[in-house]
């Protein structure tokens, strides 16, 4: 598993709950590492063990934890770069939804061998979409829910999100677009990071 994933978990715990809680969780996970490097690679077993330990220490259910991590990745001030990279995908929230199919490829363009869940968007009825989400971590559907929730907020769209179950190893997330321009778009300048 790419270090970015474990590093993200670490940053989430530290930024949301403090360094002490992270130390406790990392030691409890007993994976031999307390400080993860974003650009290193780690054994695949480590990530689930880390998540379990974090759940135990923070006393949160796994699904809620995954969702919180997703929200954190897009909305926390310490990880501004990720929110910007996501915004490139779509000019508005609907456009962003349609680009989710390509998200894993986009990620690999930036960081080779970064494994993100395979995503597929299906539109069944106007205003209602279903995102199918598979691997590599269990509960990646909940992670995507957190991401979608935060991105909708960023674009200024009002949505209702629901985890509607698992079908053949694929998690299904229902996305109801209630209002595309509900609130002000938080803004995205193409050239902000350049030069």
């Amino acid at each position: 598993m790419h270090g970015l994933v474990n590093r993200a978990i670490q940053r989430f715990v530290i930024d949301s709950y403090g360094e002490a809680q992270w130390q406790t969780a990392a030691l409890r996970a007993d994976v031999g590492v307390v400080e993860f490097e974003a650009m290193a690679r780690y054994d695949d077993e480590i990530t689930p063990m880390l998540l379990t330990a974090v759940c135990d220490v923070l006393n949160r259910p796994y699904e809620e934890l995954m969702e919180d991590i997703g929200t954190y990745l897009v909305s926390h001030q310490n990880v501004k770069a990720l929110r910007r990279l996501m915004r490139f995908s779509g000019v508005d929230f609907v456009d962003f939804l349609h680009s989710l199919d390509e998200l894993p490829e986009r990620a690999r363009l930036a960081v080779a061998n970064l494994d993100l869940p395979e995503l597929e968007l299906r539109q069944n009825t106007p205003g209602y979409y279903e995102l199918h989400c598979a691997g590599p971590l269990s509960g990646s559907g909940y992670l995507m829910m957190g991401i979608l929730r935060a991105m909708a907020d960023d674009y200024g769209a009002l949505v209702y999100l629901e985890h509607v179950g698992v079908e053949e190893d694929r998690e299904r997330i229902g996305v109801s677009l209630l209002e595309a321009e509900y609130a002000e778009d938080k803004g995205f300048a193409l050239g902000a990071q350049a030069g």
Partner: protein
Amino acid sequence: MTKTSQSDMLDMICPMHLVLGNDGTILSAGPTIRKTLGDGFCDNTELRDLFDVKSPQDGANSAPLSDLSGQKLRLRAKTVPDLELKGVLMPGLPNGQYLLNLSFGINVVRAVQLYDLTAADFAVTDLTIEMLYLVEAKSAAMDAFEALNAKLEKARVAAEQQASTDALTGLSNRRALDVAVATLVQSCEVFAMMHLDLDFFKAINDTYGHAAGDAALKRVAHVLTTETRSRDIVARFGGDEFVVILRDAIDPKGVERIADRIMRALGEATDIEGEILSLSASAGTAISTDYPAPDAEAMAMDADLALYAAKRDGRGCHRFYHIDMRQPANAALQAEADKRIA
């Protein structure tokens, strides 16, 4: 096709376009070229009022449009500073008109910032947005790698430092000293090598405890560091043995002065783990210019012989190596050696 819908089509498909009459008059312009040129643009000017042709031929401004069409053009803006565009020009529009499509080329990243461009300023099919994404993503990845490199470098330096340092005193250890001396020899520098032992170290340990013994060693380290220059090398060889390398010090009088200062400073009574003690040391020195060719091993052996001589002479003193010292009372040397092991 009516003119209106042609403009709409071109604005949508190539927002950085110009429609030209065959004399070069600008008949219409896409929104992004208008935005980029800003005040430098007004309708019914000529292409040549706005741009110089850089390539295919620098200054081919007076060439007819037909000569310029169907090839890659490099155009330099005349009304906006520092703006170069790529272009391709083709006839084929109604009424003998030409279509010139323009782009920023590799400068697009800079241009987006400079002219405050958004996704709406590029055709939906344009790869600009993807390119900007890639530039930003790669930049973030590079930053992360650079941070990792810096961390690793810091750790490497710290590890090297640790491997070269005596933990108790902070002085160089034997490994670091060997490297330093080898360098001096290789660069043909002259130096004096002083071997110094703390006298009665075992007695201090036995009488006052190991904490006091450690404190005594630290006191020696402090004195040696203080009484030498920053370019000199002070090392602890382990136990109660120290080595001082005095660079450029080949005048025996100068070395003797330093040795005296060391002995005097050690002799001052100081607090050693709660006990007021004065220390004493024995020292022996070899000087590199006394050798036909610099030889660290020989100097070390000879400094040791001089050190033994200092001990034999009653301790608390300093001796220079002398050829006589190689004539041991072998037994006396052996006795000294035995005492040191004890």
